[in-house]
């Protein structure tokens, strides 16, 4: 039935016949698998329910997210992927009536404890949004915004941070001569890379990405996926994506969500299966997962 694992179950991956429509996945060797499973825990999510007012929109999510990995949330629309993602940096606080039950532990700290400040959480957990949202300021000021909030005023330090962030986002060479121009003058793909640069300028530990490529063309998308692979060496990444192939290509672990109807006929989102990516895409435990990845629905 429903496999809700707190840890990805390990399976020796052999050359299992890949079902015809499932996206191909890089082969996972046992040593890599072990590394994946013993990496330190960053998030421990237990029995997470998310409410909008009295409506229980997401039910019973359990998962562990580990350091320096890319975790992908996949699934059809409206099944809670973004909702759960936004719980990880308390962005759901901004929605009136949103609340949770259950626990979201970040390095052992309950994120929703009353003495925890959402602002502090967000300094450690950054977010890149579906639609690029650069500030109507210069490229420089966009990147410098975060560091300035953290009290860095020295011009030289800011210059360093701006250059470093833009290099990490593979944007430096394109914009280094026009840092003072408005960020709104860039293409969509550049704007999104700017948003990524802006997010990592404050050196968060975790970078959450909410369908970052859905508004971009395939070339821009490919560049961002490349970026993600580089970034994961320094950061822990959780990405919501509609694009299964993207999840298969880039992520280490994958969580598959779906929407169900309860007895009252109300729709809610649910985590179906969470495992090492290779297993999800080659040998999923749940039929719903299998149906999704082979394209039978969704």
């Amino acid at each position, binding site marked *: 039935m429903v496999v809700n694992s707190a840890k990805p179950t390990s399976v020796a991956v052999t050359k299992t016949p890949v079902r015809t429509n499932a996206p191909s996945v890089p082969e996972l060797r046992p040593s890599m698998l072990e590394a994946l499973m013993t990496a330190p825990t960053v998030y421990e999510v237990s029995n997470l329910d998310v409410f909008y007012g009295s409506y229980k929109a997401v039910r019973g999510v359990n998962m562990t997210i580990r350091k320096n990995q890319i975790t992908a949330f996949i699934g059809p629309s409206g099944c809670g992927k973004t909702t759960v993602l936004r719980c990880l*940096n308390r*962005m759901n606080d*901004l929605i*009136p009536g949103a609340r949770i039950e259950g626990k979201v532990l970040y390095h052992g700290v309950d994120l929703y404890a009353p003495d925890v400040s959402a*602002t*502090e*959480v*967000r*300094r*450690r957990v*950054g*977010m890149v*949004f579906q*639609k690029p*949202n*650069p*500030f*109507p*300021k210069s490229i420089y000021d966009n990147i410098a*915004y*975060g560091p300035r*909030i*953290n009290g860095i005023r020295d011009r030289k330090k800011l210059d360093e941070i701006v250059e470093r962030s833009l290099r990490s986002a593979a944007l430096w060479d394109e914009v280094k001569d026009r840092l003072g121009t408005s960020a709104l003058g860039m293409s969509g793909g550049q704007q999104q890379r700017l*948003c990524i640069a*802006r*997010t990592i300028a*404050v050196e968060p530990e975790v970078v959450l990405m909410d369908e970052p490529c859905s508004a971009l063309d395939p070339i821009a998308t490919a560049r961002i996926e490349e970026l993600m692979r580089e970034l994961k060496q320094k950061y822990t990444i959780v990405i919501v994506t509609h694009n299964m192939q993207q999840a298969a290509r880039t992520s280490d672990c994958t969580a598959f969500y779906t929407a169900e109807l309860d007895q009252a006929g109300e729709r809610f989102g649910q985590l179906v299966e969470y495992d090492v990516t290779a297993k999800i895409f080659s040998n999923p435990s749940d039929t719903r997962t299998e149906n999704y990845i082979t394209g039978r629905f969704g």
Partner: protein
Amino acid sequence: MVMPQELARALELRPRRTWRTTKNTIMTGLLGGAVVVVAIPLVLVMISVFAKGGAILFAHFPKFLTADIPPTRVAGPGMGPAIIGTLMITGMATVIAVPLGVMGAIYLHEYGGQSKFAQLVRFMAMVMTGVPSIVMGLFIYIVWTLNFKLQGFGGALALACLMLPIVISASEQMLKLVPNGLREASYALGATKARTILTIVLPAASSGIVSGSLLAVARAAGETAPLLFTIGATRVLNTSLFHGDDTALSARIFENAKEAVASAQERGWGAALALVLLTFTLTVIARVITALATRRK
């Protein structure tokens, strides 16, 4: 395909003159006439203001703008104190009303949302825009002037009360136009609400807020009734808002309009021209700011 004439005629598709089409023409004419009817008084008033006012303002330029106001029966230019008075009193009213109004709008949009209190404030702000200016003037007379005597500042307070609800409404509209994605990006970087509002939201809404405020200032500059009870009257320049009687263009025009002597009346026209030029300039600047901002987007 173009229909040959004969075929068209056969199908009777040419426009026909019937009672219905005639009626349409008549009504169109009437509606156009309405526009003319509206334009007439505007044109007449503008002609009088520019002709009669120009006669004294430009003929005696710049003396009209700088000299003290002569006594009623004495002919000659001089509206300096009134011009300075209008600028100072309206300026002070702006300094009071705009920050308070913008903060109120910030509360309504960024904090209060649809809460009961916010809805109440929104409603009351709308009620407040309907308060007659004479009532505001008497109100300030009671709470301020009776305690602090006639002074320019009382007039500024009364004008500020008139401006406040307008600034709140206009600013709230501008805040609504700022895309929420910008706020989310700022919060996601760990900025507090106050910082997000001050460094991201307000700058993004600034052009709209400025032009809305300029329109409120133009309205205030033209108000007379609130000043009648609060600033007193004087003919010489008063550079302090807090000591002694003051005067303003609007109040001066009112006084001079009541006089039967030509000397006062012609100064009234001159003052009217000065006031009209001031309010028009403010309005034009506001529109230019809006146009520039929309073009940049």
